[in-house]
């Protein structure tokens, strides 16, 4: 019987390139140096300083400069850990994918959906705005913002497009997918940073004559959080590798927003009361996880999208 030819050419390469590893180190180094003289701003305020730093170093214009969406996802992950108050994802990833003009420094992402809040709406010079079936790019004079107080990591507001204003239509599906990738990347970075901070703490916290990090219940909660962070990061990277793969982006957002509250609960629990304090820093990550889990309708909305994309109505 004739033998079948098999694959000889190898294409799959499921790892970061050395250049991408260097990119991560570069951005982390820049932000760590920035933090020495620029402490984290107050909770729920925009980190303009970090955003300007990243802008000055070209990290917000990677796509415009010919870089890949995966490269930008790496920037978002790193920024989530070291500059979580900087609105990097909308500016560096979503806007370049969705609009053709040069985006302003602060871009926000909003929806017309009931109950949704828009992060950085007050500070935004442009908002990518998603309706039920359509989407628009709202410039600064084309929307109003009602500020909403929230302690959960970001300045937020309710956005209303101005009646009769001239707005630029954008492709809704493309906006939704790019947003989901950005969301997953940001959540992945926050999850990992929170897990590593909590791991360092429990290793040094002694109770009952031993490090609480040696207790298996504690270890397993953090190990599960780490698994969630890695899955989220790789789902976001995989989705960014093909920004036309809408299901991959929906799956990334579904997983990320589903696991965000699990990671939040675990890292806060193992750190105990210190975990609530501003000085410890854990809430820099967890408060934002709390807000991000709701974005774009939260896990159930993303999950339903995955199902609709994977099993279209015509095939059911």
């Amino acid at each position: 019987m004739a033998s079948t030819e098999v694959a000889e050419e190898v294409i799959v390469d499921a790892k970061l390139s050395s250049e991408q590893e260097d990119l991560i180190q570069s951005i982390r180094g820049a932000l760590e140096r920035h933090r020495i003289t620029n402490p984290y701003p107050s909770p729920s305020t925009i980190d303009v300083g970090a955003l300007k730093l990243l802008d000055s170093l070209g990290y917000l214009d990677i796509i415009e400069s010919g870089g890949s969406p995966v490269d930008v996802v790496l920037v978002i992950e790193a920024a989530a850990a070291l500059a979580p108050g900087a609105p990097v994802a909308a500016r560096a990833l979503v806007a370049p994918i969705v609009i053709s003009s040069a985006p302003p420094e602060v871009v926000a992402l909003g929806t017309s959906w009931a109950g949704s809040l828009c992060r950085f709406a007050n500070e935004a010079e442009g908002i990518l705005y998603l309706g039920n079936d359509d989407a628009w790019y709202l410039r600064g004079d084309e929307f109003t913002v009602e500020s909403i107080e929230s302690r959960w990591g970001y300045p937020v507001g309710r956005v209303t497009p101005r009646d009769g204003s001239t707005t630029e239509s954008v492709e809704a599906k493309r906006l939704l997918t790019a947003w989901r990738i950005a969301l997953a990347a940001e959540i992945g970075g926050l999850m990992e940073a929170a897990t590593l901070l909590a791991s360092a703490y429990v290793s040094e916290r002694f109770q009952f004559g031993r490090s609480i990090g040696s207790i298996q219940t504690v270890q397993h909660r953090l190990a599960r959080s780490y698994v969630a962070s890695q899955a989220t990061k790789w789902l976001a990277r995989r989705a960014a590798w093909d920004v036309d793969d809408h299901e991959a982006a929906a799956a990334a957002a579904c997983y990320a927003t589903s696991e965000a509250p699990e990671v939040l609960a675990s890292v806060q629990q193992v750190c105990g009361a210190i975990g609530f304090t501003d000085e410890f820093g854990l809430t820099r990550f967890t408060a934002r996880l709390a807000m991000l889990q709701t974005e774009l309708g939260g896990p159930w909305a993303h999950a339903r999208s995955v199902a609709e994309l994977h099993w279209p109505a015509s095939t059911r």
Partner: protein
Amino acid sequence: MDFSWSDAEIELRRKLRTYVEENLRPGWRSIDRDVHNDDTIEASLQFCRGLAERGLLTPAWPVEYGGKAASRWAQIVISEELRGAGEPRGPQYTNVNWIGPAIMKLGTEEQKAEFLPPIAAGEAMWCQGFSEPDAGSDLSALRTFAERDGDEYIVNGQKIWTSYAAAADYCFLLVRTARSDNPRDGISILLVPMDTAGIEVREIATLDIDHMLHEVFFHNVRVPVRFRLGEENQGWSIIRTLLANERTQSSLHEEVNRSLNDLVNEARQLGIAIDEPQSSASLGKAASWVAASRVLNYVAIQALSDGSEHYPNLASVYKASSVQMAGKANEAFLAILGAQSLATSSAGDYRMISSIETGIGGGSTEMQLNAIAWQVLKLPKK
């Protein structure tokens, strides 16, 4: 980073699907992977012989051992396609993915000549003699002892929870060949024909599934020293790598992925709407966990291919994620089909089994989490 399949890999996938369509025994289900009876044993052997004849069983093996020196990704394509089809290779997926490669790497020329050709021809079934009544997750506590007697070892002891033992031709057996204060010292690997005198296999009744699990007793079993794989007393490090390979190369994500299609089809036949919010959300969540598990699998496989030191930890991360995936899929079956998913004829029946088994077989979830906590997060052991 690139997640594209090459044209050759796409073509390989197509040929495998054609082969499955034409050669899979009608009615083969994932549960049949355990080869419960003569029918499933023969069907599995016949399927594998055909794969071997077409060069589709061991393409990633070196040419000298019956392969085609293809990439590891070709072997992953095969794992995905066949696991997705219910793993009609039966236990032989273990042979080609890690037992054969272990013999290639560590075996003597005589061992290679003895054991590799039957594997490459699709004619040998292996089982793994690892767990014992007092050595489960704590595998290094194993006590089955192989005492040297000239050119032979005399093996006495008991293995348990052994899959495929009733059908197996050979056992990849962990034994203790020396007693030591460090339980990880003094472990050796023996390649044992299952028809050797003194081996007794007993089935363990399990969820009304025939021959899913077994006990294997060794009563003064004489095994030639030449069937020892690797150095005497140095088996532990080999096993750690082998177990990591077991965790990453079975492509469970594809089995779960396709079972969700079965779920949709079954729901349609029963007139159950899957676009109802709870149903579609549970389906979408399960599919998202499949995507997560798949990408983590590829990351781990890449590390294995590259010889990365991070591979064992990445294998643990993958395994932990795959356990959650199995649970999410089971939840979807139960949410959509209800009790119907527990009917023996339902695709959900095996999902329920898998949701329980996945967290135990091939190294428990807790062992994976321990490894991540200690090796990655550097949490203290004491």
